[in-house]
């Protein structure tokens, strides 16, 4: 039981911290976004028409790239830094403490690892370098209108025709699809097989004929995700990763990538600290509700919860570091973190009383650029995506505790 760094860990942490201090562009330093936030994140910047935004994104990515830190978890032979689990944890922690954007997106975090394990040499050679360079951004096509929690029931159909698949169907919640160049998708190649065993993993150019995206505006008026339509989209069979009808298992690839989600715990801790600092100012006191005693104690509770969440994240890393695979612990982590996020947004918004109405970050009536009010809405899907809280509890109970399925 040790929450402190070993000498090696401390040295690595120092290295990351100093790198961030010297290389992180001004624009990305905390509080410098002029209250705009990051519509589309780093990838939005990367694809932006605005040359300043685009160049800053490239500059930061280049600095990281020199260290192999675009994909720090990938093996060195694939252009990563081959960091150990604990090193990844430290790296992620430090990046989160600085609120530094992490370029790479789905390509680095999901498609890359899948390719490294299941891809052919040709596929790796085609895709991995462009993920690292940022030239190609990836989006994930998994969920469908009829396949959310029950993802394996997906229906988007891929029919073999010579050396191509012909794909028809629809995906939904395609995050960042509008900024992406390529899509990886789970499609049904055998409708007769049991549902998990009739799925294949395909990659395709988003500009393929027949593939179209339609924006879905979320309840926070933001365009993050899309619907994706496939009308006779032709995808070369050589774009399939892994064997036909083994796609579900390909998609579940778990490498020893650090899966703690520590960034969440740290961002919530930072949020409380920033709020505390603001409340100490005259402006903060002006916005703060008169009867704030209850909220004050709720904030203390939220601070305690960030510790609990940190430990849950730390536990994942600790398990992985011992060469084992987290089981129900990952579900506990996700469930607790997502629900805590919502509690935090609720508590922080409460502090402003009626000012909890103000949505516009630029308004003079917006405490802290309306960030908490926006987070109150933005946090709504957190208990739904990546396995809803209900599903997580089912998994904990059945897979973790051995309770019988209903």
């Amino acid at each position, binding site marked *: 039981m*040790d929450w402190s760094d070993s000498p090696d860990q401390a040295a690595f942490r120092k290295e990351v911290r100093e790198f961030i201090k010297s290389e992180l562009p001004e624009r990305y330093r905390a509080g410098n976004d002029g209250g705009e936030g990051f519509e589309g994140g780093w990838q939005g910047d990367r694809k932006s028409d605005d040359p300043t935004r685009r160049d800053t994104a490239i500059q930061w990515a280049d600095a990281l790239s020199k260290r192999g830190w675009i994909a720090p978890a990938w093996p060195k032979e694939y252009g990563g830094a081959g960091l150990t689990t604990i090193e990844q944890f430290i790296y992620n922690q430090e990046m989160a403490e600085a609120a530094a954007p992490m370029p790479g997106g789905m390509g680095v975090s999901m498609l890359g690892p899948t390719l490294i394990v299941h891809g052919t040499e040709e596929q790796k050679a085609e895709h991995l370098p462009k993920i690292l360079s940022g030239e190609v951004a990836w989006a994930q096509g998994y969920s469908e209108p009829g396949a959310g929690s029950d993802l394996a029931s997906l229906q988007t159909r891929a029919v073999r025709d010579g050396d191509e698949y012909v794909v028809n169907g629809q995906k939904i919640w395609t995050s960042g699809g509008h900024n992406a160049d390529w899509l990886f998708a789970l499609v049904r190649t055998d409708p007769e097989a049991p549902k998990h065993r009739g799925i294949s993993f395909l990659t395709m150019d988003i500009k393929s004929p027949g593939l179209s995206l339609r924006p879905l505006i979320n309840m926070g008026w933001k365009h993050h995700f899309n619907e994706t339509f496939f009308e006779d989209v032709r995808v070369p069979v050589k774009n399939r990763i892994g064997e036909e009808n083994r796609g579900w298992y390909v998609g579940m690839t778990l490498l020893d990538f650090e899966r703690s989600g520590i960034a969440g715990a740290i961002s919530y801790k930072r949020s409380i600290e920033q709020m505390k600092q603001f409340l100490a100012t005259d402006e903060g006191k002006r916005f703060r509700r008169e009867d704030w005693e209850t909220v004050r*104690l709720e904030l*203390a509770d939220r601070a305690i919860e960030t510790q*609990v969440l940190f430990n*849950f994240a730390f536990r994942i890393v600790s398990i992985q570091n011992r060469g084992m695979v987290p089981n129900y612990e990952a579900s506990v982590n996700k469930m*607790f973190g997502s629900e805590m996020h919502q509690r935090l947004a609720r508590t922080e918004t409460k502090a402003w009383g009626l000012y909890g109405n103000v949505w516009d970050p630029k308004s003079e009536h917006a405490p802290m650029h309306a960030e908490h009010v926006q987070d109150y809405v933005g946090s709504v899907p957190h208990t739904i995506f990546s396995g809803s809280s209900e599903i997580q509890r089912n998994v*904990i109970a059945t897979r973790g505790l051995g*309770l019988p399925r209903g």
Partner: protein
Amino acid sequence: MDLGLSEQQELLKNAAREFLENECPETHVREMEEDEQGYSPVLWQKMAEQGWQGLLIPEEHGGAGFDFLDMCVLLEEFGRALVPGPFMPTVLGGAVPIMEAGSDAQKAEFLPKIASGDLIFSLALTEPSARFDEAGIEAKAEVSGDEVTFTGTKLFVPDANVADYLIVAGKSGKGTTLGIVATDQPGVKVTQLQTIARDKQAEVVLDGAKGQLLGAEGDGWKLLQPVIEKYTTAECAYLVGLSQMDFEIAVDYAKERVQFGRPIGSFQAIQHKCADMVTDVDGSRFIMYKAAWAIASGQPAADTTLAVNMAKAWCSEATRRVVAHGQQIHGGIGFTKDYKIQLYFRRQKRAEIAFGDSDFHREAVAQQLGL
């Protein structure tokens, strides 16, 4: 950075679990609820032979010289087994204050006898005001040389009925002052309370009770801080073990109990409660160990205090949720005296409110965070 037990800690834990399963079964726990002394001297001696009373005591005084984190590993097992009796009062309320504040002579006089199981101690701190701050200490202390005389009333003193000595906190002209007071004297009158946990807590009326001065006159509150932090964290360790067992019993019951033609654990409502229980137990475990680690590894004082307050704030409330679910999952049978789950529910409350509950520690956290 690691969140697992060391090999030595695993050995300690496994040995303790096996020992307590044999020596402290449910029947013993129930017997001690009705027993006048509330503990078994035979079991007490066996624990001393295991080296447990002396676990924290330095080897030079007959102990094992383990650290506080190790002690919390052991105490988790005590909570799991609901061990009755004056173990925590003796170790945390007796050995620890003497190790923190005692003279060399006092350490030599008392620590070996605590380690050997020959002496039972308890901490007489709280009073009828039921406060946890320095202002709550109103008992009067009069110092004369190495001797201190106490007059006042202490309340909620654990195991005072069997303690050989009490560590008493009183107020002299110079401030809070501590003393080691033998219970076997006319000026110490112990009256038992009947408690929810059926443990032995007492009102202790001190009337010119004489004892050895412990630490300098007026230094008492300062000397008590590390003691209180350790004792508070120890209560968290006990709560973790208690709630872990409550949760295991509830999950087992959910797998066994059949209604509507299927185990009730196959219904989502029950499954979700179990998922919440394991989250609360695990959350409690790690936040408790963080505090224990901070104490054992000598982290900066402010960080340690914050860790302790956070641990008690969380564990007090989280374990309450766990035992509440434990009762609910059992339905009617859980409400009977004969079924065991109620043993955990009642004892959770005692530990929850010892050294301050969630509200108390949440306020402390808020203050430390500068809110």
